[in-house]
C-alpha cells in the first residue's frame, strides 16, 4: 500500500492545501481548532491567519468596504479568541484591515495621493497608509552595537513601510503595481487589490527571517560569545548567517535538557551549519547563567511579539537570562519581524504568560510529584522594555524610541484600539 508513510494528523500544510476546495467556514473552523489544539503555533500563526483572511476576502459575500471590514474583523476576532496567547494573529488582522481601508480610500479619492511615493520608490505597497506619519531624519542610535549603515538603511525604509531594505532581493516588485487605477471603483478591483496586498504581507512574513539575518554581521563580531536562550527559527537563521562571515562562539541555554535526546541531536540544523562554518557551539543547561555572563558579549532572543511600550513576549526563561545580562551590562538583542509588533498596551491583558503542559517539568509517571506539586509551566513570558537594548527587525535595527513610529506606520489609528473591540 502506497500511502503507508502518510501522516494522518492535521497540520497547517494540509489545511492550506485544502483551502481552495473547501467552504470558507470550514477552513476558518479548521484553523481555529488547529490553534486550540496547538497544532498551529508560534511562527506559523502569522501565515495561517493571512491565508485564512485571504480566503475571507476572496470568498466571503460582501458588497461594500464596510461589509468586507466586518467580515475580516469577525474572522480575525474568532481566531484571536481561539488563541489569545498569540498576539501576532491580532497584528495580522490589523494589518489586513488597514490594507482594506487604504485600498478603499484610494479607490474613493482616485489617485491624488501617493504620487510622490511612486516617483521614488520601487514598490508602492498597497498598505501604505492614507496619512503616513512620516518621520524622516536619522534615527538616534543609542546602543553601542548599532552600526550607522543599518540605521540609515532603516530610516530610509521608513518611507517605504512595507518594503524592505535596499539590499534585500527577496522582495519582488511584480506583485504590486501602483494601485491608483481610476476604474477600481468596484468591489471586484478592490478585492484583487486587497488580495495582492495580503500576498505581499505574506511575502513580508516569509522573508522576515532572512531579512533579519542580513543584519547579523552588524551585531556579531569576531571572537564574540553570543548567548541565545531556546533559539527560535529566526535566531537560528541569524546565527547561521553570522557564521558565514564571522568566527564566534554560541552558547545555547535552556533550563533543562529534553529527556531522551542526546545533546548532539538537539538543534540539528543549527549544529550542523554552525559546525560547518567553524563556529563553536556550547550547550548550557542550568540556571547558573549568571556564571557565564562575564564571558558573554551579547544575548539574543527571538520575540513572539513586541508591544507598544517596547516590552517583548519571549520564550519562558528568557527573562532570567536578560536579568543576568543586565547585571553585567551586556546588550540584549531581540529579533522580531515588524509583523510581530503589537500596537497594544501590555496592561490590557492580565497575563501574556501562556500556560503549557506541566509534563515539561515532571513526568506524569511520577505519581507523588503529580499529587504534591502545583506546576505552572509558562511557555512565554513578558520581558519588560528596560531589559532590551536593540530590536532587530526586518527593517533594520531599532531602538525603543522608534517602535512607536513603526507601529504608527503599520497600523491605522482605527485598529490600534482593536483590543477593546475583540474583547480580548
Amino acid at each position, binding site marked *: 500500500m502506497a500511502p503507508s508513510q502518510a501522516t494522518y*494528523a*492535521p497540520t497547517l500544510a494540509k489545511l492550506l492545501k485544502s483551502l481552495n476546495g473547501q467552504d470558507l467556514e*470550514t477552513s476558518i473552523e479548521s484553523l481555529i481548532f488547529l490553534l486550540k*489544539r496547538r497544532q498551529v503555533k508560534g511562527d506559523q500563526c502569522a501565515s495561517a491567519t493571512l491565508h485564512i483572511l485571504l480566503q475571507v476576502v476572496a470568498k466571503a459575500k460582501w458588497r461594500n468596504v464596510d461589509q468586507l471590514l466586518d467580515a475580516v474583523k469577525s474572522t480575525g476576532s474568532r481566531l484571536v479568541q481561539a488563541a489569545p496567547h498569540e498576539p501576532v494573529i491580532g497584528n495580522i488582522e490589523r494589518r489586513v484591515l488597514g490594507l482594506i481601508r487604504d485600498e478603499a480610500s484610494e479607490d474613493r479619492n482616485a489617485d491624488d495621493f501617493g504620487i510622490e511615493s511612486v516617483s521614488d520608490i520601487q514598490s508602492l505597497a498597497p498598505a501604505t497608509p492614507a496619512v503616513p506619519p512620516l518621520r524622516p531624519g536619522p534615527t538616534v542610535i543609542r546602543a553601542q552595537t548599532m552600526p550607522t549603515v543599518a540605521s540609515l538603511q532603516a530610516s530610509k525604509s521608513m518611507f517605504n513601510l512595507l518594503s524592505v531594505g535596499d539590499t534585500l532581493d527577496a522582495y519582488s516588485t511584480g506583485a504590486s503595481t501602483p494601485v491608483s487605477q481610476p476604474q477600481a471603483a468596484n468591489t471586484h478591483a478592490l478585492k484583487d487589490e486587497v488580495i495582492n496586498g495580503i500576498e505581499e504581507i505574506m511575502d513580508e512574513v516569509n522573508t522576515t527571517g532572512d531579512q533579519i539575518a542580513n543584519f547579523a554581521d552588524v551585531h556579531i563580531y569576531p571572537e564574540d560569545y553570543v548567548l541565545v536562550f531556546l533559539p527560535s527559527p529566526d535566531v537560528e537563521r541569524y546565527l547561521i548567517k553570522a557564521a558565514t562571515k564571522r568566527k564566534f562562539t554560541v552558547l545555547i541555554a535552556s533550563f533543562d535538557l529534553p529527556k531522551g535526546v542526546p545533546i548532539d541531536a538537539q538543534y540539528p540544523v543549527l549544529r550542523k551549519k554552525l559546525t560547518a562554518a567553524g563556529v563553536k557551539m556550547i550547550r548550557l543547561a542550568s540556571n547558573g547563567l549568571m556564571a557565564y555572563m562575564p564571558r558573554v558579549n551579547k544575548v539574543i532572543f527571538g520575540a513572539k511579539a513586541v508591544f507598544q511600550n517596547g516590552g517583548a513576549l519571549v520564550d519562558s526563561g528568557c527573562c532570567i537570562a536578560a536579568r543576568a545580562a543586565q547585571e553585567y551590562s551586556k546588550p540584549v538583542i531581540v529579533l522580531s519581524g515588524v509583523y510581530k509588533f503589537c500596537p497594544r498596551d501590555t496592561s490590557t491583558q492580565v497575563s501574556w504568560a501562556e500556560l503549557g503542559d506541566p509534563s515539561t517539568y515532571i513526568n506524569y509517571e511520577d505519581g507523588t510529584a503529580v499529587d504534591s506539586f*502545583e506546576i505552572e509551566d509558562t511557555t512565554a513570558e513578558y520581558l519588560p522594555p528596560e531589559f532590551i537594548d536593540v530590536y532587530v527587525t526586518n527593517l533594520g535595527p531599532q531602538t525603543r524610541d522608534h517602535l512607536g513610529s513603526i507601529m504608527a506606520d503599520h497600523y491605522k489609528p482605527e485598529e490600534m484600539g482593536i483590543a477593546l473591540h475583540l474583547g480580548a
Partner: protein
Amino acid sequence: MSGKQGNRASAGAGSAKSKKPPKGKAEETREDVLQAVVLADSFQDRFRPFTLETPRCLLPLANVPVIEYTLEFLAANGVQEVFLYCGAHSSAIENHINESRRWSPDSILSPFSSLEFIRVSDASSIGDFLRDLDKRGLIGGDFILVHGDLVANVELEDALAKHRARREANRDACMTMVLRSAGVKRHRAAEARGITPMFVVDSSTGQCLQYEELHPLSDHYAYLDPAVFKHGDFEVRTDLIDSGIDICTPEVLALWSESFDYELPRKNFLHGVLKDWELNGKLIYTEIVEKGYAARASNLGMYNSMSKDILERWTFPYVPDSNLAFDQTYRRAKGGSYFEADVSIGKGCDITKSAIGNATTVGAGSTIKRSTIGRRCKIGKNVKIEGSYIWDDTEIKDNSVVDCSILASYVTIGNGCRVPKGSLISYGVQIWDGKSLQPEPAPRISLLTDTGSPAETNPSFVGQDGKGAFYQEAVEEDSDEEGGDSAALARLQNSMFYSLDGLNLSSSSISTLASHDSFDSEDEDADGGSFQQDSSRKRLLSFASDDSGNVSKSDAFHGDAVHGLVDALRADDNEDFDSAKLEFMGLRLANNASDSMMRRAIAVAFVRRASELLEPENGGLEPTKAAEVALTSKNGAVKFIKEVGLGSEKTAQQSEFALALQKALLGLKGLEVMRASTLLAALLQQLYHQDVLEEDGILAWWADAKSSESDSLAKIKDKCRVLVEWLENADEEESDDDEEEDSD
C-alpha cells in the same frame, strides 16, 4: 447515519437494523482514510445513579461532556470516518452530536468526513457491538477503537506507523494497544483504576504475551503462562493505565466474531486471544507511551483523578482555557482557576484551581478549591466547596459545605447543609436546610431507583422538605457485567468508590480546611488493607520479572510458601484448599521453585501444623490424631500433597517426600525426639491410608541411606519401624487398590 431501534422482543442474534445499508464494502474503502469506532456505551453501571439519566459519555468532565474530548482526540489524530456505537441512552447521544455545530454529520464544520451512528438493539456487551460491526462490513482497513470516555492528547502517528510496519511484516499482527505508563510510585490514576491490568510484554518487540486483571479482591498472585518464557526477555507491567485505544486491523473483528462469548475487550478478548495464541496465531502488540496523557473515565475514581488532571493541565491542550467546546469562554485567572466570561464572584472569595462556568454566581466569602462548577449555578455566601464536581444549574445555599462529592444538575443544597466526602447526588435532588448527610456509608442520593422508577423520598436523608432517596444498587444487576462475579464486583465497585476517598486523603492533608472528621477509621482500614495487598502484589510481580536470580529467592519462596500453607491449614473456615493451592502455585511460578523445593515446603508446612496440634494450647492432641487432623481437616489438602508435593506417583518422589517430612520434624524446635518420631510414624501411616504414599515409597525411604545418615535422623525414624514391618508383612494381601503406574 441513524439507525432504527429494533424491537427488543425480536432478540435474534445481532438483529441489528440500520436504515442505511452498509454504505461501502470493505474493499471499496480507501486505505488512507483513517477510521475510528467509538464505543459510547460501556454496559456498566459504575456511574450510577448519574447514568440512569445521562449516558456516561455525556457526563461533564471539567464542564465538558466526556465524548467531546474523545472526538477531539480523534480529530487531532486525523481520523476521517467515525462510527459511533450508542447503546443505552442512544437518542441522548445522537441528539448531542446532531445538535453540536462541530460534530453533527450534516455540519460542514465537522472535521470528520463522516460520522455514523450505529445502534444495535439487542447488544448486551461490547462484544455484541463488535460482532455486529464485523457483519456490517464497514471497516476497510486499520481502524482505531476507542471508548466514549477517553481523554487523551497522545499522538498516534508513531503507533500507527509501527502498527502498519508490523502488519506488513506479519499478517498476524492484528492489534496495537496504546498504554500509558504510570510509573512504579504510588499514582492517583493507578489507584483509581480499580482493576489493575497486568500486561506481560516482550521487552524488545512490545508484543503482549499475556494479560490478566487483578483487583484488590482477587487473588494476590498471577500466573505466568509457561509459554511466556519462550520469548526471551519480557516485562510484567502492572503500572500501565489502559487508555482503551486500540489500533486494530479488520481481523480483530473477525476474532470477535469467532468467539461469540467474549464480552469485554480486555478481560475476555485480549486475555482469550493471547491464551489461544497457539490456535489463532494472532499477535497483539503494546505501544507504551511515556509522554502525553491517555486515560478513560472508566469509574468514579478515574473521573476524580482525570478532573484533577485536566485542571492541572496534564491533558494540555485539552484544558478549560482552550475552550474546545463551541460556546466556551474560559480564561485563566489568578490562583490557577478558569472562569467563563460571565461569572460573578462575591467579595472575599477564595477560589483556587477550579473551573467555573458561565452565568454562575458565587456569594461573598465562599471558598472553592480544586472543583469544577458548571453553568448557571448559584453558590451562596460562605460556602465551602472542595474537590467537588458540580454540574450545571445547581444551587448551593449559604454556609453549606461540600466535600469531595459529585453534584449533578438541578440539585439544590439548602442553607447550612453538609455534604460529606464521596457523596453522589443525582439530578434534581433537594437537600433541605440544615441537613448534614451521614458520612457513612457515603451517600448516593437520587430521585430514581436502580430500575429507573421514581424513588420514594426519604426525609431522614434529605431533610423534611427535600427530595430524593438513598440509592441502592441491586446486586443482581451486576450479574451480566464484567463476567458475572457479582458479589466480588459489587464490593469492588464499592472499593473503587472508596478509592475516591483514599485519593483525597493525601490532598486534603495539604489543604487548610479542617474538615477531616468525615472519614472514619473503618474506611481507612479498608484502604490500608488494599494498599498492603497492593504492595505485596507488586513485590510478587517484581520477583516474577526479576531474572537476576538472587540467592535469597529460594529462601523467600520457602518462607512464604510454608507460611501460606500453614495459615491455610490453621484456618477455621470450611474453605476449600484450592485457593491455598493456587497461591502456592503462584509463588512457585514467581520464584521459579524446583520440585524438590516445593516438596520440602509442603512437608515442612504439614509437619509444622501437626506439631502445633500436639501443643496443649491447640488441644494437645495425640500424635496419631494430630496427624489425621493436620492432613484431613481440610478438603483437598491430601489431594494437594498428592498432586503438588509428589507430582507423579513414582517411588522416588514418595521416598523423597517421606525424607522431607523426616527432616522437617528434625528441624522443629521444642519437640522431643520421641514425640517427633511418633508423629512421623503417624503422618506416614495417615498418608498411606490416604493413598498418598504407597508402600513401595515408604519402604524405599526406609531403605534410603539418607534417611539415617545422622544419629538424630535415625532416631526420628525409629518409631516407624512398626509401620514398615507391618507394610512388609502385609505386602501380599494389601495389593494396591488404586495404584496406577504412571509412565511419566
